[in-house]
């Protein structure tokens, strides 16, 4: 079974407002799947539904090809929203509760506390931890039992740059070990650096999804400078060369339509009598694509 999660037509409404609407996507085993979207796009709602915390109004989802029950979640590590722990309990006792639920040996606690650099604070009360440490504890909890699948909602929230780098390293290490990681984030850089696949959400709908590098490749931008920019712009639009096209003075910025290459564009311009002063290929960052997509 290569399919870890299959979400089909998931809808959740709060009053008249749709948190997610008819959401569908599949996650394959061994992928690091980013769910990317601005605040309020439905990322946490989606993860909360698939982790059994909230109920969907309609639609369904299957974990490992089956309808989930509470036992399913024992094999999934999760960090949903702000990590929630008992503030009066020590780190050890908080994690002990999870090992009891998941029926794991207690030595797992030291292992994950070591991985997240929290071992020295093992007996500190949770309330005494900094925000970053609490976040790391959340990740430690998700790693208990070395689960095959981890669901992480904004895992670098509240961390300093060093902490962010550490957590990303941890996630990449887990991914390299063949784990499936579902990561919700509004930080584009994070998704670009960590994820192999991405689904971009806006207002509870998937706007685009696929492999991160393919999404990037498909959206290479070509920047052309020509003294006859206006005429060239018209010719390109007529010829259907663009997915998106913008003109600013002598400069034209376009993302090429499916199947078209920058070389063919250059040839087209030459054959139609346009002299290109400059042709430049710009690999569009996920950030600019993201902003463009959710515009």
């Amino acid at each position, binding site marked *: 079974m290569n399919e870890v999660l299959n979400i089909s037509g998931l809808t959740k409404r709060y009053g008249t407002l749709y948190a997610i609407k008819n959401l569908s996507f599949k996650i394959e085993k061994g992928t690091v799947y980013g769910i990317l979207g601005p605040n309020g796009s439905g990322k946490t709602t989606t993860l*909360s539904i698939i*982790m*059994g*915390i*909230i*109920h969907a109004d309609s639609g369904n989802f299957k974990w490992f090809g089956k309808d989930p*029950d*509470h*036992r*399913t*979640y*024992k094999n999934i590590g*999760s960090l*949903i*929203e*702000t*990590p*929630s*722990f*008992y*503030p*009066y*309990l020590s780190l050890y*006792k908080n994690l*002990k*509760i*999870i090992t*009891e*639920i*998941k*029926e794991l040996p207690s030595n797992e606690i030291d292992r994950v506390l070591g991985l997240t650099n929290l071992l020295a604070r093992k007996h500190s009360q949770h309330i005494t931890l900094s925000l970053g440490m609490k976040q790391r504890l959340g990740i430690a*909890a998700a790693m208990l039992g070395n689960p095959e699948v981890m669901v992480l909602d904004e895992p670098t929230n509240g961390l300093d740059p060093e902490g962010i780098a550490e957590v990303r390293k941890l996630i990449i290490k887990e991914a390299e070990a063949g784990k499936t990681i579902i990561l919700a984030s509004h930080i584009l850089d994070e998704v670009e650096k960590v994820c192999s696949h991405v689904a971009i959400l806006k207002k509870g709908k998937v706007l685009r999804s696929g492999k991160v590098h393919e999404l990037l490749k498909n959206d290479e931008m070509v920047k052309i400078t020509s003294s006859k920019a206006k005429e060239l712009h018209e010719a390109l639009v007529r010829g259907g060369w663009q997915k998106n096209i913008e003109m600013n003075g002598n400069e034209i910025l376009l993302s090429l339509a499916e199947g078209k290459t920058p070389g063919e564009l250059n040839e087209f311009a030459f054959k139609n009598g346009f002299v290109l002063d400059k042709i430049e290929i710009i690999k569009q960052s996920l950030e600019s694509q993201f902003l463009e997509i959710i515009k």
Partner: protein
Amino acid sequence: MKKLLNIEFIKTLNNSTFKLIIILHALLFMLLVYFSTKIDISIPGFKVSNMFMFPNVWPLFSWYASWFNLLFLGIIIIVLTGNEFSFRTSRLMISNGISRNEFLMGKLMLILLISAWGMTLIFLAGSISGFIFTDKLSLISFFENSHILLIYFVQAIAYMSLALFFANIFKNNALSIMMYLLYFIMIEPLFRLFLPKAIRPYLPVKLISGLTPLPEFFAIGSDDSMISINGKSPLELQGINLFPESIPTYLSLILAVAYISLFITASWYIIKKRDF
């Protein structure tokens, strides 16, 4: 079951509010017991110490303890359940593989344990008092009326089940405690005023609190000189109709168990349907 108990033990035995309430509960109850045994009233034909003898001590101490059920034990359950919502640890539990039924079951186990703790306190206090004050000790007098401990146990469960229901509805400790107490002291008593007299004793608070009724102090405190020919004290209040006729104990128990089932079912339904 063992797993759920372990989890609840980690959560509760390390909770300072829980420890404080439990210690306060035991301390105040023991103090009440101690000071009440020191009361000295001089009424001809009435001996205060008779109230602390076997078997009179069981209904008396159960009645004392019932007040603490309402105040302390109910509030403990509200705090422990409400914490799960205010700390959002209910999410942690569910997302790590506790089912919604197990989530409720954990709290029900706590209710049973706390009720057993309350019953044990009465048993200990009653035994000590009985052994000190009873002139002619016998197994019969020790066990007579001791069934009221089980009735107390049911009452404690009933109070805490209602508290659990309020905690699940309101999710907020302060609001739940306020509504729980208001229900007892204002909402139901007011509601009762608008109902026919025949129905009033069957409302939850009236019925549950009636499980451990106010003992007939004068009857149980009467000395031998006041016992009439038919074996009953002329001061026995039921006899002179100062108190209205109460519901038979067996019926009260059955209805209390029905109310417990109702409160638990309502809590189960809320938890099942709730988005955590």
